[in-house]
């Protein structure tokens, strides 16, 4: 029987080409645009997002060109609950969440996939740049666009029903293909920012929801060196926007080292103090067998971030990572994704670090 595929179509070029490729491969493809905002106008009006009227229209237009049925599914409530509220509460807790990753874990390969399966679909197809073949998730051939990092939180059961038709092609190749296929979204700009923050101002978005909570910015000795309007507005490793009153004794730039929501304190210090040599992470998800003992691998600590050699050790629901060289700007709440070369081994959520200077 022909595989019945639900193609998630955001209105962008990638998901449009992914749907077209799935249809061309002979699958029985139906396009679905997820409406993620209950009040579409309130979200992004700029170049590209997940939730605007223009995106919905672009997705429909692409589906018409491909010649597949197209529907809009309202997932706004789930998205708000599992992604937007999670985003806000993670920041409130002093962590740095990745909402795209959460959206894959809770929406695309959970709410959307569950509904698709219940309605008789066999798989969900997306425009992610990653290769998924024979139970192995690999980086896309276009390393600059690779999205295996944001997919690594998905369980093997979730991925078993996923199709990523773009992993073998570069972004430039996909744009050219969209052009060739007559998809008018070929020239649409890439999305970079968080789709539910219209103007890209994360701090203002959080302030609106969490309120002003002024507190001190201190240095490593505990000396107050400035003030902030809410500790939630900061990310480990951040340098810009600290508005510190007096320069450091050595005249060097200072970075956010720690965020304590309990005392509402932001600690800053020199760049070297950011160096992390050991990471602890919780709730691991493994794409193959659960590794036993210590093993060598590579780890990526944020989307499009650097890759470090490390030794990983699994201890039940925790993973300890010893880095071969120090990493900077490692924030709790981000995913640590383990690779063996271009192959994803698994992922876990960072919940603690050991600094080189400690």
């Amino acid at each position, binding site marked *: 029987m022909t595989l019945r595929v639900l193609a998630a179509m955001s209105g962008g070029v990638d998901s449009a080409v992914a749907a077209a490729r799935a249809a061309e491969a002979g699958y029985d493809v139906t396009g679905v645009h997820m409406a993620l905002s209950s009040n579409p106008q309130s979200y992004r009006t700029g170049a590209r997002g997940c939730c*605007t*009227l223009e995106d919905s229209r672009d997705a429909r237009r692409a589906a018409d060109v491909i010649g597949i*049925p197209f*529907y*809009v599914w*309202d997932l706004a409530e789930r998205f708000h609950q599992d992604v937007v509220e999670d985003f806000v509460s993670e920041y409130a807790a002093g962590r740095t969440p990745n909402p795209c990753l959460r959206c894959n874990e809770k929406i695309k390969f959970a709410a959307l996939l569950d509904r698709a*399966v*219940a*309605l008789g679909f066999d798989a969900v197809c997306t425009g992610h740049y990653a290769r998924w073949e024979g139970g192995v998730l690999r980086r896309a051939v276009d390393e600059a666009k690779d999205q295996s990092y944001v997919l690594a939180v998905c369980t093997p059961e979730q991925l078993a029903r996923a199709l990523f038709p773009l992993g073998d092609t570069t972004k430039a190749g996909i744009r050219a293909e969209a052009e060739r296929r007559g998809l008018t979204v070929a020239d649409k700009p890439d999305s970079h920012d968080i789709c539910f923050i219209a103007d890209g101002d994360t701090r203002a978005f959080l302030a609106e929801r969490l309120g002003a909570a002024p507190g001190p910015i201190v240095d490593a000795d505990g000396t107050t060196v400035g003030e902030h309007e809410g500790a939630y507005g900061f990310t480990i490793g951040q340098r810009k926007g600290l508005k510190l009153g007096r320069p450091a004794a050595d005249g060097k730039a200072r970075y956010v080292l720690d965020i304590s929501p309990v005392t509402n304190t932001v600690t800053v210090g020199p760049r070297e103090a950011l160096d992390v040599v050991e990471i602890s992470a919780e709730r691991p998800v493994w794409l193959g067998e659960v590794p036993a003992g210590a093993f060598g691998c590579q780890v990526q600590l944020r989307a499009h971030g650097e890759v470090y050699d490390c030794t990983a050790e699994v201890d039940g629901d925790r993973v300890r990572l010893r880095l071969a060289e120090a990493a900077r700007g490692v924030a709790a709440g981000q995913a640590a994704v383990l690779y063996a070369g271009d192959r994803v081994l698994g992922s876990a959520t960072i919940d603690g670090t050991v600094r080189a200077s400690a």
Partner: protein
Amino acid sequence: MLPEAIAAMTAELAELGNPSSLHAVGRRARRVVEESREVIAEAFGARPSEVIFTSGGTEADNLAVKGLYWAARAADPARVRVLASAVEHHAVLDAVQWLADHEGAAVEWLPVDGSGRVRPETLRAAMGPDVALVTVMWANNEVGTVQPVAELAAIAREHGVPFHTDAVQAAAALPVGFTASGAHALTLSGHKLGGPLGVGALLLAKGTDPVPVLHGGGQERDVRSGTLDTPAIAGFAAAVRVSAERRADEAARLAALRDELIAAVRAAVPDAILNGDPAGRLPGNAHFSFPGCEGDALLMLLDARGIACSTGSACSAGVSQPSHVLLAMGADPARARGSLRFTLGHTSTEADVAELAQAIGPVVERARRAGLS
């Protein structure tokens, strides 16, 4: 589109001529327009001078609602109340709401009973010296319920208030007589009668003069300016002629087919709820709520089996909304969202009904499972 309408329209497309021009070419076009006007007037029991051509049902509704409100208020500034049924098509609903939002109208949405009907006593109780306009559709586009238009129009007339009815859905299926109904204004749409898209008419009783929405060359009794679209009007009239000839037989055929469809759905899904009036409804309309299902899911599953149906309206992003018609009839939002309309038309056959009878049981079962996930 009916072949007769295509023939009439394409013949005119090859001709030149503005029916407002005085030269020979214009006179020829004018003759086509006026003959079309006569055909339409006769089919709907109106006088030719009462036919105002528009670009379709939406424009006719807007002209009636806004124009008659403005005219009534201009004649008597105390008349600012608009009475409209709660189950109107959006072309009326949103025009009325616009008057409330921008023109100081006091809108009263006339409630309907469980079958979607405005009871005459409801209108009677709402009437008063401050009413500018009453608008109640002839038959509902979603649930098919036919309104007691003549009774309602008589009540409005007693109070000297203009009565508009949107007969877009009714015109192809029911005997619609304009003068006999007592309505002052009645909306028709070309494509719903088998004619072309983009043309319609407002039947406007002599002496009922709305303030124009479109200003310009003063065509159509100075009520609707704009060069007339002769080919579309010719196609419209051809469709009306054919539709009027076949209406009675076709309505009987569709009603029988519809009853078969209703029986088949009920047999397959015993807890399906038939919405609308069981008897006083459009012959080609069957509308159900399927408890525990999302209408969207049903539509998609049926579409995949080659069966086209409709869930109602969607917001501009394409997310379907619970129907205001079902909500007005007392349905809760969950039931409203789990509803589907099946429309039978001149191409529908017994085989189509048999196909639906086969599909609906498994489809509802699957949609229920999905609804719970």
